[in-house]
Structure formats: structure tokens, C-alpha cells
């Protein structure tokens, strides 16, 4: 009798929808895992024999070096800005997040454009100073170049998380160390790095996940990694089965990394969404030190944001006339509408699951949040493979139904824009989820309970009370998801319907076709919209 009572009371719309959503998220991943163990074909044996090792090697080199450099730059900037006062410190607090507005693939072809033979630097040297340089020194399209690019445009993940942590958690320890007269360097290495370990690990993990997700940079720079290999086996060789096996392998690596992360950061949990912080009292720097700190921050800000932006603007200037034609408008409409639709679905789903999880106890309420956010760890190309295999098999099942409807029995689901949106939702659900969950955490369950005691159902309570109180978090989640989707490259390249282009795919395509000037305008559009979002986040939502 009791289980029946429990079932009856928990089985409401929120529960059922949550179960459905979570199944949606899991299915494509399961689909990969199932096929991962299928009989290998000859191509796969060949890949495994001759290529796999170099994919793994390149991928590892990338994540180790990018992880190391973002750690050093991100934490040192976070430390300087939290602990010291120097010119423009206030600005750098958010200015140094701005490089995140430039997706690494845009940074990659921008820097190539700056440095190559016909680029600004070399042309100036040749024309003004009559200097011709050794091309080897200026070639960025190699492994060190890729590491440079990733570091430059991803370090803000480490910077923001560490900064928030230093300000919130460590005030006492650092102030004690100061009173005891430790030098800055000693405090940095002996106090700051060890105590913010959990935050640093969380930040570096985000960086590594982004590197694993990337297709644009490595493809453009000609480095073979898992993502490029997935594209190549699938589209170059038409071998989806091997693509699935590569995806499965990459997924295993990701899971391994996530476990490693868990172990390394201990029990503390970090979400990327920022919360209000009490700042460490910064010490005023003087003389040479003041300018050293300023120069360091300024240097990073210049190379990670200002220089690429100026270059893009210059290129845009050459081509804006031919671009403000209908094509550009079409791209914006495509990008904005898919991002808008997907983010709306994402926000609704995130609300349903987080509201379910906070109002219920038990197994489902505990596991659902964890499952919901796995999509964010899984590289876009892998999700794409999973979604495609899932949809084609659904299509096959539905052949009979299509015929019955009088339609041609072809692949309907798996060639539609629906599939692209579906994949976006899986990949970016976590982004909105984290924001909305932290909003719910802030208000607690008291208001909901008060509302229910006044005769409102859970659903009515949500619309009349909870939703109004977490408006900021919902809006924030929407914006974050929207921006991520607008920048997205690998998923979109794989899953877009025939002849459907977004700003991101078109920009990348132009750049790949050596039409770098044409790539500038869609790139700038992406960067500006993301930059505005970062600004709004820092200045408006932070203060809520």
C-alpha cells in the first residue's frame, strides 16, 4: 500500500516530464556506447593500428600544455587582481573575462592572418623596414600555435573561478600569511595555489573540456585529434561505424578525466555561475611593482582581446559593403533563431528538472541533476554522432508510419533542423541548469512551501512565486546558453541541414577557404554579442 501511496503522490507532471527529459539526454550517449561494442570493420582496425596512437598523443599534448598554461596565467591574474590594487584593476576584473567572447577558432584564423606572409606584421616589416623574416618563426599553424591560441582564449575560465574562490573563501588565510610577513611569491605558491586547488581544478577542467570539444582550431591548424578524426572518418570515408568507435573512445577519455577531476578537487563542488562575493582587501602597490602588475594584465588583455578585435575590424572594413547584403541577414536570422529556440527549450527543461530535484527526495531527485549536466562534458562531435545514430534508427522504425501517412519512406527526422536543436539542447542544458539551480538554491524552498500552505499547487506556486523570484537566474541561464549556441561549431557543422548556415559555420568556412576578410564580419558579430553578454553578466546580474 505504501509504495502505491508514494507513487501516487510523486507521479505528477513535473516528475514525468523530468523522466522524459533525462531519457532524452541519455539516449544518444547510450546509443554510442551500445554501438561502441559492435563488430569492428576493417577501417576501424586500420585506424586503431596506425592512427589512434597519434590522435591520443596529440590530444594529450594539447590538454596537458593548455591546462598548464591556463592554470599559470589564470591563477596568477586572479591572485594579482584579488590581492593588489594598481591602475585599472577594476576594469581588469571583468575585462580579463572578455577573451571568452572570442571563440578559439576565430582567434586561430585571426592570429594566422596577423602573422602570415601577407599579414599585417610581415607586410609592415617588408614595406617599411625592408625586412623579410624567416617564415618558420612566424608560422603559427602547428602544435605550439594551437596551444597558444587555446591558452589565450580559454584562460578566463581558470581566472574567473579562482578569483571568485579567492575572494570568498580564503580571506582569512591570506591575511594571516600577510601579517606573518610572507612575500607575495611565497603566499602565491604556498598558500594561494594549494588552498584554491578545488577551484583551479574546476577551472582547468572546463578548459580541457573545451579543448576536447574543439574542431575549428585543430582543423584549421592541421592537427589530428579525435574530433578531426571523427569528421574525417565519417565525412571523408563515409564510415559512421568507425566514427562511433572513435566517439566512444573519446567519451571514455572524458569520463576518465571527470573521475580524475573528482578525485583531485576533493569534496567541494563548483559551478561556473558566479555568486556574490566578499572581496579580499587589496593592498596598494607602489612604484615599479604597480606598473609591473598593470603591464602584465594589460599585455594579456591586449593579445587575448584587443589585437584580434582590431584585426577583425580592419578586415571587416574591407568587406562590409559586400556583406551587408541579404546573405548576412540570413545568417543572423538562422543563428539567432536556432539559438533562441534551443535556449528556450533548454531553459524550460532546466527549470523542470531543477524544480523537481529540489522539491523531492529520493533516488531520482538525487541522480537527475547529475545526468542533466553530462552533456556539457561530452564533445560536440560525439554528441552529433550519438544524435545521428539515434535519429536514423528512429527514422527506420518510423518508415512504416511515414508510408502510412502517405510520405516517402526516407530519413525525415535525421535530416531536419529538429536534430540540430535536439543536439544543442543536450550539449548546453547544463549551462542553463547551473544558473537556474543556483537561483533556486538562493531562495530555498520556504516560499514554495508557504505558497502551498495557502492552497496553491506546486505548478501554480512555481508560476506565481518561484519563477518571479528567480527571474534573474532564468534570464542568465538563457543568455549563457544562447551565447554558447551562437558560437558553436562542431555540432552545427555536422548536423545542420543541407544549405543551412549560421554565422559560426559561415565564418569558419570562409576562413578555411582563405577568404579571411569575409570571415571577419560574422566573427565580429559573434564576438560583440558575446562581449555584451559578458558585460551584462558582470554588471547587472552580479549585483542582483
Amino acid at each position, binding site marked *: *500500500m*505504501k509504495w*502505491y*501511496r*508514494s507513487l*501516487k*503522490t510523486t507521479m505528477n507532471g513535473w516528475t514525468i516530464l523530468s523522466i522524459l527529459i533525462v531519457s532524452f539526454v541519455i539516449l544518444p550517449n547510450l546509443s554510442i556506447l551500445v554501438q561502441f561494442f559492435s563488430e569492428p570493420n576493417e577501417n576501424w582496425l586500420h585506424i586503431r593500428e596506425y592512427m589512434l596512437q597519434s590522435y591520443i598523443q596529440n590530444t594529450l599534448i594539447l590538454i596537458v600544455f593548455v591546462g598548464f598554461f591556463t592554470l599559470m596565467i589564470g591563477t596568477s591574474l586572479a591572485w594579482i587582481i584579488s590581492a593588489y590594487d594598481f591602475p585599472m584593476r577594476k576594469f581588469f576584473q571583468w575585462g580579463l573575462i572578455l577573451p571568452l567572447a572570442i571563440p578559439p577558432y576565430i582567434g586561430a584564423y585571426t592570429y594566422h592572418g596577423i602573422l602570415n606572409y601577407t599579414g599585417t606584421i610581415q607586410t609592415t616589416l617588408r614595406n617599411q623596414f625592408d625586412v623579410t623574416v624567416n617564415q618558420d618563426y612566424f608560422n603559427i599553424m602547428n602544435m605550439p600555435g594551437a596551444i597558444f591560441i587555446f591558452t589565450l582564449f580559454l584562460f578566463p575560465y581558470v581566472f574567473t573561478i579562482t578569483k571568485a574562490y579567492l575572494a570568498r573563501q580564503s580571506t582569512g588565510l591570506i591575511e594571516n600569511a600577510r601579517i606573518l610577513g610572507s612575500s607575495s611569491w611565497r603566499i602565491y605558491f604556498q598558500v594561494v595555489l594549494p588552498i584554491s586547488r578545488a577551484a583551479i581544478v574546476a577551472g582547468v577542467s572546463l578548459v580541457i573540456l573545451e579543448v576536447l570539444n574543439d574542431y575549428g582550431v585543430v582543423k584549421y591548424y592541421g592537427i589530428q585529434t579525435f574530433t578531426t578524426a571523427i569528421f574525417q572518418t565519417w565525412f571523408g570515408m563515409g564510415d559512421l561505424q568507425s566514427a562511433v568507435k572513435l566517439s566512444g573512445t573519446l567519451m571514455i577519455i572524458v569520463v576518465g578525466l571527470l573521475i580524475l577531476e573528482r578525485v583531485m578537487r576533493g569534496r567541494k563542488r563548483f559551478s561556473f555561475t558566479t555568486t556574490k562575493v566578499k572581496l579580499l582587501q587589496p593592498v596598494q602597490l607602489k612604484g615599479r611593482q604597480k606598473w609591473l602588475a598593470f603591464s602584465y594584465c594589460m599585455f594579456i588583455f591586449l593579445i587575448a582581446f584587443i589585437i584580434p578585435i582590431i584585426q577583425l575590424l580592419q578586415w571587416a572594413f574591407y568587406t562590409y559593403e559586400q556583406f551587408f547584403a541579404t546573405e548576412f541577414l540570413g545568417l543572423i536570422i538562422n543563428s539567432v533563431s536556432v539559438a533562441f529556440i534551443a535556449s528556450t527549450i533548454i531553459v524550460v527543461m532546466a527549470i523542470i528538472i531543477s524544480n523537481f530535484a529540489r522539491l523531492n*527526495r*529520493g533516488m531520482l531527485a538525487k541522480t537527475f541533476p547529475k545526468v542533466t549536466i553530462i552533456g556539457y562534458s561530452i564533445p560536440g562531435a560525439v554528441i552529433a554522432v550519438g544524435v545521428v545514430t539515434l535519429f536514423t534508427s528512429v527514422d527506420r522504425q518510423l518508415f512504416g508510419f511515414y508510408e502510412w501517412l502517405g510520405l516517402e519512406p526516407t530519413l525525415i527526422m535525421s535530416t531536419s533542423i529538429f536534430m540540430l536543436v535536439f543536439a544543442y539542447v543536450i550539449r548546453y542544458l547544463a549551462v542553463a541548469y547551473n544558473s537556474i539551480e543556483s537561483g533556486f538554491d538562493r531562495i530555498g524552498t*520556504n*516560499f514554495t*512551501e*508557504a*505558497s*502551498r*500552505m*495557502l*492552497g*496553491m*499547487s506546486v505548478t501554480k506556486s512555481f508560476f*506565481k*512565486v518561484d519563477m*518571479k*523570484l528567480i527571474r534573474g537566474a532564468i534570464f542568465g541561464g538563457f543568455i549563457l546558453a544562447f551565447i554558447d549556441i551562437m558560437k558553436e561549431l562542431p555540432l552545427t557543422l555536422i548536423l545542420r541541414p543541407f544549405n543551412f548556415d549560421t554565422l559560426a559555420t559561415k565564418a569558419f568556412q570562409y576562413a578555411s577557404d582563405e577568404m579571411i576578410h569575409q570571415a571577419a564580419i560574422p566573427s565580429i558579430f559573434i564576438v560583440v554579442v558575446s562581449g555584451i553578454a559578458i558585460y551584462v553578466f558582470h554588471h547587472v546580474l552580479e549585483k542582483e
Partner: protein
Amino acid sequence: MFIHIRNLAFNYQGADEQTIKDFNLTIDQGEIISILGESGSGKSTILRLIAGLEMPTSGNIMVGDHCMCSNSTFTQPEKRGVGMVFQDYALFPHMTVEENIKFGLQKWSRKEKKQRVLEVLELVNLQDYRKRYPFELSGGQQQRVALARALAPKPKLLLFDEPFSNLDADLQIRIREELRRILKSTGVTSIFVTHDQDDSQALADRIVVLRSGEIADLGTPNEIFGTDCSFSERLAVKPRVLSRV
């Protein structure tokens, strides 16, 4: 008997021990009951069970003729006709005093709503504060709005969780008297939870002393805090119980 609680038992997930063990209580219509106990003794948990915010592992709760909870049925909190005043009041910050009070009156007609708001505001003496937002009120005023809001839908039973804990001592004594007057004038059955025996003594018709989730004692304030020294010693709810005698 108006309210019947029989063999109520409950434990939070992950807790080793039962939070509430075999709780039995019957309450007459219009009676004011106080649940008195130390921190962690399970007072809030009892209220949450009666309110329907938690589901007991076993036991029955009857309010009037309606079975709120048994092994086979469970009535959702919004369907129980039970009101609650929360410890931190939980006034909706985005609504005015008036809107907060109207919130529980969704099924009433517009005219009735208006009428009722005025009635309860008069009862708690806050007629002039209709248009204020909660953050524009003092702690004592907020508390009275919370009371008005809970009273407005005419609940069969009203629950209070530590209603005075956020007020300073002076205010506490005044509001205590006022609360008893209001409750008695509306005739609503009520249960309030406190760790302060002065509160219990001043407000309640009967007191339930709770210790580790079990009823340690039950009776009128006189029976519980009578002059019998040994009795109080045995009870030892708080050091203050002893020091008073």
C-alpha cells in the same frame, strides 16, 4: 475530538534514528496546543508532517472527518485546509501586504477578497500598511502580516513554527498576548512550536513536551509547570525550567 494523530512515525532520508517515534495526539476544536522541546527534538518535523510537507513512514492524521494521511492516502498540503506561519515568515518579497494576503484567497470572488483583506488586517492592526512591501515593514509587523495571511483563508488548523524567534524580548511578550487574543477571537484550532517555556505557558491551553521525537509529557501549563519540584526536575526541558521553580 477535532484532530487525531495516531502512531505517527517518520525519519529523514539518511538519518539513522527515527526523527519522530510513535507520536499520538488529539486536539479539540479551538484549542491552542504548544509543542515545547529542545533544538533538534523534532518540533518542526511534527508541524511539517501535519502540514503535509513531509510524508510519514506510518501513522494517521485526521482533521475533522477527513483523513489527511494514512498508509494508503496522502493529501497534498494545498488540499488540507491547514495554514502555517513560518519561522522567517516567508512573506513573498515581490508582493505587497495586500497581495500577500490575497494570495490564499484565489477561489474567492473579488469583493469577498477585498472584504477579507480588510478584516484580517484590522484583526492584526495593520490597516494602514496594505500597500507596503514586506521589506518596508518591521519584524513585528512582518510577523503580523504572516499571521493575517495564514488566517485569511479561514484554515481549519493553524500551525506556527517558532513564531517569536525573530523578535526582541519586549515585542515577544506583547505579541504573545495579542496572538492569544486573536486566535481565541477567531476560534481557530492552532499548534505552535517553541523552545521557550514562557511562550508555551502564556499562550497554550495544553503543552506537549517533546524529547528526541517522543512525547515526554502532555498537559495544561499548570500541570506541567506546577509547583511540584521533582516533576520539573524529571522534565528538565531546559535549565530555565528548573531555575524558575
